[in-house]
């Protein structure tokens, strides 16, 4: 299911807390990073590791906005439109991404390269407008600079 390295990391993580399930949220995030999304198999595996039911794991997943139960694009473009970004063109940037990528909020391109999401404050307010692609921050963006960012990822995917 998981790489040996991640498996080992999980074994260590459950010992960091008095209860095993305390490691659940970070484990879900790391599992998602490796597998791509939280499939039923991943959920079953993690439920066993932390001694809770699969239903309880699903309950937790539905609370956190970064956890996905469906495959996302290889590059998940998250555009912040919260107040600081909105005042500096975050909404225009989101519209630009929508037309450039040909997809809407929470949609994935047919080839699975990019997916798009409008997100809430990502903590880049002083460097707005900001976008996160997977975990990488891109700040002080304009539509032109956003194009370069997207081109960069498209090129990276081909290598």
């Amino acid at each position, binding site marked *: 299911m998981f790489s040996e390295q991640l498996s080992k990391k999980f074994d260590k993580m459950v010992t960091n807390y008095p209860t095993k399930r305390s490691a659940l949220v970070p484990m879900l995030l790391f599992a998602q990073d490796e597998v791509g999304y939280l499939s039923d198999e991943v959920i079953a595996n993690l439920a066993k590791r932390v001694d809770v039911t699969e239903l309880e794991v699903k309950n937790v997943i539905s609370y956190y906005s970064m956890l996905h139960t469906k495959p996302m694009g290889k590059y998940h473009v998250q555009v912040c439109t919260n107040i600081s970004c909105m005042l500096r063109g975050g909404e225009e940037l989101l519209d630009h991404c929508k037309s450039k990528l040909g997809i809407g909020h929470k949609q994935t391109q047919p080839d699975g390269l990019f997916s798009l999401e409008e997100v809430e404050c990502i*903590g880049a*307010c*002083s460097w*707005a407008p900001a976008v996160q692609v997977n975990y990488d921050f891109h700040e002080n963006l304009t539509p032109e600079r956003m194009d370069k960012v997207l081109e960069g990822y498209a090129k990276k995917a081909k290598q």
Partner: protein
Amino acid sequence: VADLVSHPDEIKVVSSRFGKGATNIDRYIELDGYKAVRKALEMTPDAIINEVKTSSLRGRGGAGFPTGMKWSFVPKESAKPKYVLVNGDESEPGTCKDRLILEHDPHAVIEGVMIAGLAVGAQKGYIYIRGEYRYLLTIMQKAIDDAYAKGFLGDNIFGTGKKFDCYWHTGAGAYEVGEESALMESLEGKRGIPRIRPPFPAVVGLWGGPTVINNVETLASVPHIMLMGGQKFADFGPPKNGGTRLFCLSGHVNKPGVYEMPLGYPMEKLIYEVGGGIPNGKKLKAVVPGGSSTYLLTSEEAVKMNCDFDSFAKTGGFLGSGGVVVLDEDTCMVKFALRVMKFYQHESCGWCIPCREGTDWLKKTLTRFHAGGGVKKDIDNINYLAQNMLGRTFCPLGDAAAIPTISIVQKWRQEFEDHLEGKPCPYENKGVPEPAFA
């Protein structure tokens, strides 16, 4: 990696090691690192708490609760283990300071956790970092590993025979987890739903044990207080509002960025001198003083305000989290209120009905209103709905949604009138300013 800025009026305490390579433990030690915790190891718990009380340090997450007092609420004797929990779930819109502390000075946070642990008798500390800040997790993991390798953490810290363990933890995208009781739920591997209080976390917290929960910036201030002495730190700010804090300037300012100013610094200077004023010579309309859950200030109020907890409290407002968002004259306040409400509606966990239903109704009403479908009685209804959310929820998310809405409806009522009866938004298509570093 975010750009660092500076201004001559700054007093760099918490930010003193920014950009100096202090993520490296040896470099951190060169910059007076881990001296404060050694000093604390020779002090009694009461002496540590008294030093922090003298500093008049108040919670930097936004509530402004006196840190020393919070620590003194933890019972001396406890059958269950005690814990220190660092709140790094920074997600208050407009706030981006903890990110810089964790990025540039992770060891200061670890040191702060250890000192808090010594003060309350805890032997374990957890550093909770929001899921979006993944790169900080790598930095923090390395910092903790390095501290263990040096014998600063573990079963025999600094050779004193005392024990202290420190762990990192990550969230996965939830604003509400920034609230202390939801934070504990999340750390225990559950949905981040708030707990009712009392009992307060200082008595019954993580896994039922007494728990001290502090913001990243609060704990990062503690080592500096131990080294310079509480009185010197207190003297930076006005009485009962000790020290400096990081202000995150964003929105319509020429020089946005994170600046460390003494508490009590005038808001007018913060916007016009430190922030370089409003772009394109426009006029100031409004200021969000400390993250989106604070009462907005009109330009007249803002220029008279000093940035400390008590000056705000006197006018019935909140200094908040340090996220100062500046709005110019061409900002539509109805649209702003809508965007703020859209956020709270998205983040409400649904546990308390006034918050769950209130945020949803307000979002729907404001959406319709901004699109030109508003009728006159909506204006009072928005205010009425928001007023009825205040103080009626387990956690302050309901208040956080109501507060900006109430202040916008009351202070900018005319703008709501301007949207009535199908009139188009008078501010649409006014354009946005260029990003500062473009």
